[in-house]
């Protein structure tokens, strides 16, 4: 039996209102002040702030409630239980797998804990192009500070693992800056299993921070409950139809209706636009579900002379923005360099190959280092992102074409990563591409990569960052929601998640979602209750709040 205390079990024991799945039957109907769709980054921050304002909150989450005692650091469990579509979500043409959380805490439960402030050049672009003066770097600073205090976000001071050391060593040798990442952890064991659920509750995800706070303040959490349809009456939402589901997403009981004064959609940048599309909400400028971004991500593996054991230690500790910062934001696509955890299922699958290739990879697996390059989409006419569409059963799919502009970035990112890996002393390097080989020198690799065909499918590309589709903008012609998250055409509906980003951001998005949700939810709390709330102030119990 583990020595780790499970805060979810403790909360349930002291009477949290959690329904659905194994936690008890869902209601036939429910009335509250605010219903929040989702329980990830945007939803969690919103839930805590609105609950602190004394509002009666209901949280609707399609995935299960899992917690530290369930997290066994096993890939065989984690992808199936904690990720969208059992870990099998892909873009419409199947060319890109999309990793997104589907559990209480959403992607914050399974991300690799990198916490970046939104790059200033991205915020400047949003101010200039989308009129989002509220999102300027100075205006956002207090929101970042508040969220960072709440989620214990600070620089990672532990030595990087051997995989991250490859990035640092190679980059420094080439004169490229590779600083240390900020992470949202407290008492981290440096296990390396962040993507499989944190078994020690060190990662300050929504699962162990804001959602418990909201539940302690009396919020109701409905799990294994799909938000199916918002009912529109005039320019107001009059109800949310919900569908209880089994773990696999199939129906588990009769639908029921939640009514609220206000509705916050925060289901993530594929599911949020899909819910609004299923509901037939006004979309006068045809923007809903469009400009959905992925940070299309390419990889390169290297066999190092030293043992890397890239499964152990914080998966993200070092990064480089050199190839974002040294070129114009709207020119040839830039890319951020990071590392990926080297777990057997994840790495052996994503690096491609079969037979002899896999045998060779298996032999050198403990010496394998993986770098990734995340392409910054959304700033150039040729990087307009994808479109969320609905299948006949109402489930969403993202159609995201991979064009020559993106593939040019993939090739350049491969070149950068391979050069860094050789500079760090790699014995051989192989970019993740179906036609690539193991290259023994930078010169050989460079020639080969310049000659490889860069096409969809044979170029291995994936994503773990879904953004956009419900853009915020200062005018309805440019955005689905207003700068404060409020829907432009529907009076009592707000969107508080990464779908409101008008572009990708060029950094792992969790801290940007947190900060934007904090800004939006603080404003919403003020509009609904006249109260000022903060993430870094103590929570007042619901009874005291309602008496106030």
């Amino acid at each position, binding site marked *: 039996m583990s020595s780790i205390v499970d805060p979810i079990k403790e909360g349930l024991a002291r009477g949290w209102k959690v329904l659905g799945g194994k936690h008890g039957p869902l209601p036939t109907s429910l009335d509250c002040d605010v219903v929040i769709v989702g329980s990830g980054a945007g939803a969690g921050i919103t839930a805590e702030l609105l609950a602190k304002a004394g509002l009666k909150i209901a949280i609707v989450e399609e995935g299960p409630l899992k917690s530290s005692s369930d997290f066994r650091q*096993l890939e065989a469990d984690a992808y199936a239980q904690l990720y969208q579509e059992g870990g099998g979500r892909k873009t419409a043409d199947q060319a890109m797998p999309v990793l997104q959380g589907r559990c209480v805490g959403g992607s914050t439960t399974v991300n690799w804990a990198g916490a970046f402030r939104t790059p200033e050049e991205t915020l400047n672009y949003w101010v200039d192009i989308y009129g989002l003066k509220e999102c300027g770097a100075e205006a956002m600073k207090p929101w970042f500070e508040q969220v960072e205090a709440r989620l214990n976000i600070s620089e990672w001071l532990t030595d990087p693992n051997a995989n991250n050391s490859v990035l640092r060593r190679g980059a420094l040798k080439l004169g490229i800056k590779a600083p240390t990442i900020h992470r949202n952890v407290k008492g981290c*064991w440096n296990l390396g299993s962040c993507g499989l659920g944190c078994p020690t509750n060190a990662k300050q995800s929504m699962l162990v921070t804001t959602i418990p706070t909201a539940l302690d303040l009396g919020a109701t959490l409905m799990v294994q409950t799909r938000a199916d349809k918002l009912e529109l009456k005039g320019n107001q939402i009059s109800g949310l139809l919900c569908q209880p589901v089994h773990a696999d997403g199939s129906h588990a009981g009769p639908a029921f209706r939640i009514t609220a004064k206000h509705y916050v959609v925060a289901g993530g940048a594929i599911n949020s636009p899909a819910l609004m599309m299923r509901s037939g909400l006004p979309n006068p400028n045809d923007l809903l579900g469009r400009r959905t971004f992925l940070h299309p991500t390419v990889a390169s593996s290297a066999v190092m002379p030293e043992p890397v054991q890239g499964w152990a230690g914080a998966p993200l500790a070092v990064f480089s923005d050199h190839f974002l910062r040294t070129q114009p934001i709207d020119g040839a696509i830039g890319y951020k360099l990071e590392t990926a955890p080297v777990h057997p299922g994840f790495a052996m699958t994503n690096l491609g190959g079969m037979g*002899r290739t896999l045998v060779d990879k298996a032999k050198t697996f403990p010496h394998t280092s993986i770098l990734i390059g995340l392409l910054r989409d959304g700033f150039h006419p040729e990087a307009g992102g994808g479109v969320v569409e609905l299948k006949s059963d109402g489930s969403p799919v993202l159609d995201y074409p991979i064009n020559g502009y993106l593939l040019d970035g993939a090739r350049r990112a491969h070149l950068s990563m391979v050069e860094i890996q050789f500079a760090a002393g790699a014995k051989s390097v192989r970019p993740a591409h179906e036609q690539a080989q193991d290259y023994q020198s930078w010169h050989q690799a460079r020639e080969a990569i310049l000659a490889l065909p860069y096409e969809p499918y044979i170029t291995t590309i994936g994503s773990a960052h879904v953004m956009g589709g419900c853009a915020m903008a200062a005018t309805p012609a440019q955005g689905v929601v207003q700068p404060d998250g409020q829907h432009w055409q529907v009076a009592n509906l707000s969107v508080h998640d990464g779908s409101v980003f008008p572009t990708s951001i060029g950094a792992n998005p969790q801290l940007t979602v947190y900060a934007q949700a904090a800004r939006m939810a603080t404003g919403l709390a003020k509009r609904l209750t006249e109260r000022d709330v903060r993430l870094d102030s103590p929570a007042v119990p619901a009874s005291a709040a309602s008496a106030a």
Partner: protein
Amino acid sequence: MKRRSLLKLGIASGVVLAVAGGSLALLKPGLLADGKLSPAARQLMRAVALAVFDGLLPAEAAAREARLAAHLDQLDANIAGFPPHLRGELSQLLSLLTSSGGRLALTGLTSDWAAASVADVQASLQAMSLSSLGLNQQIYHALRDLSSLVFFSNAASWQLVGYPGPREIP
């Protein structure tokens, strides 16, 4: 643009349009009512495993069969966790690939999955992986990636890659 509009219908729909036309109803589903691989689909995924993991499976016949059986059971368990629409698409794909016409048209394999040699299946998968047709690429990745994730996530494969398993938490 025709190719993209065909592909965006998803794996199965694309395959159906390309090959089966209106005869799909005559084919047996690739997944049984309980969501498990049909006997024919199990043969297919066994042949894929023999090809993809060639050199990584136990050399001794009984041990190899036991490892393959465990792999196929784990595939069943994984597929059971997929949402219904994904299971439906996979079922249709497997259905087509286990019909002789679909197999020949989509993979180029002349003998059925149980009889095909490891080398033949490898050659077929290899050709699909480098095909200029998105459809062939989709099929390759559907078969190969699903098999690989299940195989290497299983503790029985960790020794092959020198992975000690998760660090114990006292």
